[in-house]
């Protein structure tokens, strides 16, 4: 787990851990290497990797990374597998626009709940089993597409398949057991981005599979059902690979689970309270709903949109739609990176401005996409929109770790759930009724993105300021220590439960911007609770 003190929610620590800039490795004096360990990568005292070696499959660290992001990506493939085939499915099942829209809403709604539960599942069973259970138990839901005969069935099956998006949680959790918290930011950001790519891969994969099956002689209305066997089998294969090749911890399986007898030091109720009463949490829930949320909505509608509006063939529409999701490969990490660059000059204020600019730009490009009348303009607008939305996702999670130290896990979970909620809401309003054509829906979605990004201006950190206000000059309230320690009451402070927060506060001083970074003498990455 990312934090050895075992507090509930600490399992999510390091999910978004972006205390330091993206780093590929951690230098030795900062985090001591355990030289007795025999791993392919240098490891720390907990045997977590200190280096992120992308093209290696070495057991256990990099192998975990690849197993993890591929399983997550597989779940994205199956959740959005119906989207590029909708032009066929709608004729087979006699769907109306409302039915298609409702199915899209259903596909993202299930995981709001399942992501919240998954954290507990990972705590109980470990991330390896959490991932394998989810992936293999959702394979039947994918196969059950072959039974669907009407709109109700279609919506139900898409809802059930959507539960598997909770692999996001197991993916990030598993990574934080394997990688040192100093580099976990890049590792998790890459895994999340590459996982989201599945939403793009599916737009290419499913029409091609469908076409092949049709050429083999099946009728259209049978071919699409057969095509779903491919993501179904991917689930089974990935589940088996995770079970056979994966392990829970660097040293093997289960050993730390035996130690689970250690009672959680922090109370869930308290953490929940601090998460919920921090107004910034809710602003990020809204914001992520309009960066990740619109990405998910667009994954659902874009292939059908290109097919209908520009009279393209199914697989051509699929190729174009795929490029939307595939941009995640670099767009999401790039967003985080841009946030880091802004932070080196302007600190947290730079991060907030970067987020606002990127997300608003994405919204404007979305408006342009809705208004584009020719194929070329639409493609250009869509690609720019995808870069904006996905980079905004990366930039969001570059700030979230600073909102709270104590309740980071829950806030990350709530933000993630907000993404799905925003997606469901957007699809419900703009893409499920006959009131808007799809192009009008896209335009209005863009307007809503711009409007819902404005609350970023309200996020104010007393120690660092906000977009328009400078930091507080109060010598007590304007410090990082005060902000992070205020999450603990006096009794807890007397028991020294807030030490982790104080260390975090010390490390976070770099968010003050250039004047602070140049003044600071110790390196940003003082060893924290590793």
């Amino acid at each position: 787990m990312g934090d050895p003190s075992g507090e509930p929610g600490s399992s999510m620590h390091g999910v978004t851990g972006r205390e330091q800039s993206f780093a590929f490795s951690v230098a030795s004096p900062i985090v001591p290497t355990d030289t007795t360990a025999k791993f392919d990568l240098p490891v720390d005292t907990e045997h977590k990797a200190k280096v992120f070696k992308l093209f290696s499959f070495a057991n256990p660290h990099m192998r975990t990374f690849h197993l993890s992001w591929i399983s997550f990506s597989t779940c994205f493939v199956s959740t959005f597998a119906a989207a590029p085939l909708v032009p066929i499915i709608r004729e087979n099942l006699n769907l109306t626009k409302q039915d298609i829209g409702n199915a899209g809403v259903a596909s993202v709604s299930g995981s709001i709940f399942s992501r919240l539960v998954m954290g507990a599942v990972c705590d109980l069973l470990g991330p390896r089993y959490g991932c394998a259970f989810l992936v293999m138990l959702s394979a039947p839901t994918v196969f059950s597409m072959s039974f669907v005969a009407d709109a109700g069935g279609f919506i139900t099956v898409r809802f059930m398949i959507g539960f598997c998006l909770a692999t996001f949680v197991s993916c990030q959790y598993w990574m934080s057991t394997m990688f040192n918290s100093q580099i976990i930011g890049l590792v998790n950001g890459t895994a999340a981005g590459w996982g989201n790519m599945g939403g793009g891969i599916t737009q290419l994969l499913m029409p091609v599979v469908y076409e092949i099956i049709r050429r083999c002689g099946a009728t259209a209305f049978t071919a699409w059902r057969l095509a779903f066997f491919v993501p179904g089998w991917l689930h089974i294969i990935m589940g088996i690979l995770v079970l056979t090749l994966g392990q829970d911890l660097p040293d093997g399986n289960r050993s730390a689970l035996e130690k689970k007898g250690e009672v959680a030091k922090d109370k869930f109720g308290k953490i929940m309270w601090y998460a919920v009463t921090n107004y910034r949490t809710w602003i990020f829930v809204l914001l992520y709903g309009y960066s990740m949320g619109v990405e998910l909505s667009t994954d659902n509608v874009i292939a059908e949109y290109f097919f209908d509006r520009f009279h393209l063939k199914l697989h051509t529409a699929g190729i174009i739609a795929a490029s939307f999701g595939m941009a995640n490969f670099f767009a999401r990490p790039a967003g985080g990176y841009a946030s880091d660059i802004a932070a080196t000059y302007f600190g947290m204020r730079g991060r907030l401005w970067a987020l606002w600019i990127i997300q608003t730009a994405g919204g404007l490009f979305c408006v342009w996409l809705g208004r584009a009348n020719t194929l070329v303009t639409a493609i250009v607008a869509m690609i720019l929109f995808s870069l904006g939305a996905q980079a905004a996702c990366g930039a969001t999670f570059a700030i979230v770790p600073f909102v709270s130290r104590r309740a980071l896990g829950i806030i990350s979970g709530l933000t993630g759930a907000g993404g799905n909620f925003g997606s469901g809401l957007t699809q419900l309003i703009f893409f499920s009724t006959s009131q808007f054509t799809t192009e009008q829906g896209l335009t209005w979605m863009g307007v809503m993105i711009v409007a819902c990004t404005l609350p970023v201006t309200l996020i104010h950190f007393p120690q660092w300021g906000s977009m328009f206000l400078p930091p507080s000059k109060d010598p007590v309230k304007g410090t990082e220590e005060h902000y992070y320690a205020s999450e603990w009451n006096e009794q807890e402070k007397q028991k020294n439960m807030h030490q982790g927060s104080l260390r975090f506060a010390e490390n976070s001083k770099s968010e003050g911007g250039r004047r602070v970074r140049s003044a600071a003498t110790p390196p940003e990455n003082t060893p924290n609770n590793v």
Partner: protein
Amino acid sequence: MAIKKLLFASLLICSMIQSSHGATKERLFTDLEKGSLEITATPSRTGEGVVLAAGIDKLSITWKVSSTATKEPEFKTIKVKLCYAPVSQVDRPWRKTHNELFKDKSCPHKISSFSYDPTVKTAQSFDYTLERDIPTGTYYVRAYAVDAIDHEVAFGQSTNEAKTTNLFSVQAISGRHKSLDIASVCFSVFSVVALVVFFVNEKRKAKIEQSR
């Protein structure tokens, strides 16, 4: 910086392309000569509430050129299509009727296309078995007369102008097969069983190791 310039340039070019996309395709449905072709479509099974089965039932289509047709010398090809009645277009914008011919989506299913023989003046007929990919819906039949440059010049349809008479309903095939259902169940069961087997196995091995 270079990337920004490239992006801006491509944006400019694209917007120019958009504006230069001229009005060359605006051949309108309302320009076509109405009623030039008299066409009737008789389903193989008729009656109150009869729904034809896709892939099984047939339509017997009879057509001839109307005496009122003025553009007859231009006819080169006759294209017969299956079209959606208004009731099947509700809440389904991908089947919408547009006046611009290239945009119109109300007649997507081709029945037949053949050369027009001006020497035959009597009514001709042919049978059409409803294809297996015809969706569930209510339909009528329309025939377009197309000239040598592949532009529609006239049409006729088996229903009235309001598209309320002589409509027939079709029920699509479900696309489901027993073998598919069985395979689906088998794979699902395999997935769950494999998971349980692995889990139980590992727990057993762990117990054995612990007891050592």
